[in-house]
């Protein structure tokens, strides 16, 4: 700022002319124009305003969700219907809005089941593919695979959904289920896994590439086979960053609505349906019972409910829950990232 530097310093005459040869007769004034200084001060406010806008948006969404969600439990403005208790909503598996039952456990369980399954498939695949790209593949393949992974991350989820709906579902139904519908956790998790694998692969590749080459050399110089070196040295050394990669993948999976909604079957009563089934293959039944998750239920029902009704407010409470889960995951990623530096 100009008040810190007295103008006299800038304007002070230089040392006597005989001090050096070939000096400028008149040095330029090296001062910013008034407009420049004004713009400098203005910049600060523009940057601050943009930051506040982003923070405000995030905070605003949280506030909106919290208010509408709370209206389900508290008689307040925005609630024109009956009040539900906390217990009836969060600890009940009975979802029957027409009859006044708003237990959201099926959706919470559905979300965790489908994302957990997806991660079970995607995490090992992604980590091993990352090792392959970073440490085993020849350079041309490394470049190619990195570009492919970056492309895959950018594919809109609805495209995966269409693919699942029109290709995978009929295929699985035909091959395994005697042409019975195949919608449910199995196919949803598979589609989700395909969606999050590129993210995990990209981050895992970065993690392995950032390891010093001396670790690999050191272990192979002791007589490790390539596999031993990967398994015993590289993966443990990259563990914090690999966990971060998986948590980020999980975050993406939990928030995904479109693709899952298209293949999961959208059945809020899935827990009931599974209890009633009496066949001998509980695993298959679990994988192929039409089900629902927090996100799919929101996509499905939010447009069809009246504002202010308990039903509508409970859906907002579900949105709030989803928001909080995602926040927790992001915080967990931060925590993991910090561990690495320690």
């Amino acid at each position, binding site marked *: 700022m100009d008040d810190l530097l007295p103008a006299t310093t800038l304007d002070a005459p230089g040392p006597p002319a005989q001090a050096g040869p070939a000096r400028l007769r008149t040095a330029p004034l090296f001062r910013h124009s008034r407009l420049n200084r004004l713009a400098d001060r203005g910049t600060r406010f523009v940057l601050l305003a943009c930051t506040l806008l982003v923070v405000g948006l995030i905070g605003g969404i949280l506030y909106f969700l919290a208010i509408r969600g709370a209206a389900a439990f508290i008689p307040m403005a925005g609630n024109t219907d009956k009040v539900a208790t906390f217990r009836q909503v969060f600890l009940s598996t009975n979802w029957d809005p027409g009859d006044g039952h708003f237990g959201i456990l099926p959706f919470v369980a559905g979300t965790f089941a489908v994302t957990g399954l997806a991660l079970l498939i995607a995490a090992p695949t992604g980590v091993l593919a990352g090792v392959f790209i970073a440490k085993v593949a020849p350079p041309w393949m490394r470049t190619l695979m990195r570009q492919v992974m970056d492309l895959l991350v950018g594919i809109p989820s609805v495209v995966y959904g269409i693919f699942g709906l029109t290709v995978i579902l009929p295929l699985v139904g035909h091959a395994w289920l005697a042409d019975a519908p195949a919608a449910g956790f199995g196919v949803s998790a598979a589609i989700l896994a395909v969606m999050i694998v590129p993210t995990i692969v990209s981050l895992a590749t970065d993690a392995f590439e950032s390891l010093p080459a*001396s670790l690999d*050399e050191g*272990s*192979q*110089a*002791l*007589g*490790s*086979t390539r596999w031993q070196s990967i398994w015993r*040295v590289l993966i443990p050394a990259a563990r914090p960053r690999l966990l971060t990669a998986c948590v980020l993948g999980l975050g993406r999976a939990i928030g995904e609505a479109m693709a899952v909604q298209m293949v999961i079957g959208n059945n809020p009563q899935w827990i009931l349906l599974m209890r009633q089934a009496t066949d001998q293959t509980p695993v298959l039944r679990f994988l192929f019972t039409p089900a629902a998750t927090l996100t799919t239920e929101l996509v499905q029902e939010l447009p069809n409910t009246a504002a202010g009704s308990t039903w509508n407010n409970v859906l907002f409470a579900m949105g709030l829950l989803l928001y909080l889960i995602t926040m927790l995951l992001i915080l967990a990623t931060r925590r993991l990232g910090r561990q690495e530096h320690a």
Partner: protein
Amino acid sequence: MLNPQIPETKPVKLAVRGMNFWYGEKKILHDLSMDIHAERATAIIGPSGCGKSTFLKCFNRIHEVSSQVRVTGDMLMDGVDINRGGIDQVDLRRRVGMVFQKPNPFPRSIYENVAFGPRLFGVRDRATLDDLVEDALRKAALWDEVKDRLKDSATGMSGGQQQRLCIARALAVHPEVLLMDEPCSALDPIATSKIEELIFELKDSLTIVIVTHNMQQAARVSDYTAFFWLGKMVEMDLTERIFTTPRERMTEDYITGRFG
């Protein structure tokens, strides 16, 4: 240092004959031949880029981990060709240990670093592992410093301790040859002198080949010295002769600091 008047009594451990080496298309080493005796320390000196580290790494073929390389000529260990004699790379590296320029301990405990090698070869028994770890750490003159904190992370040690840990790690699988690629270049003078003492003791039981930039170090620790220049071996002889009466003018110039 060996006395030139007394004839060599130790057998040849590594024999190199007419060896050439390429990195991809680029030829790095030209027609090298030398004998390396068991239970002796052989130093390789020469200016940067003369191929001395490359040559060293050929003895355990660690290049092949990350690069496309080609070797012609013979490299015999106990009379068996290490490139073509049907020796498995992994087995070769167990027998020919290596210590790198920069200490590279694994990010684990001190104990796990030393036990790493034996575990690779299926040693699971706790008592055996304990013995191997203690033995290797004693040989590397590190036991007294770390015996009370074997569970501590290796990355928290000083640079000199880390390098001795890497030596212990290499010794734990009982190698026959120990390759050292400028093992002291990242260390302070005190840590360096400890490593040099160690080399002196270790060569009673194994063959040591050490690449070094530091001519005083070569003179202090080695029995034989080879001088490399531009991928060729100019001269190899007993260290005492190389440093007092070299046959080649170029060797003398390098040793006296006239180039390099």
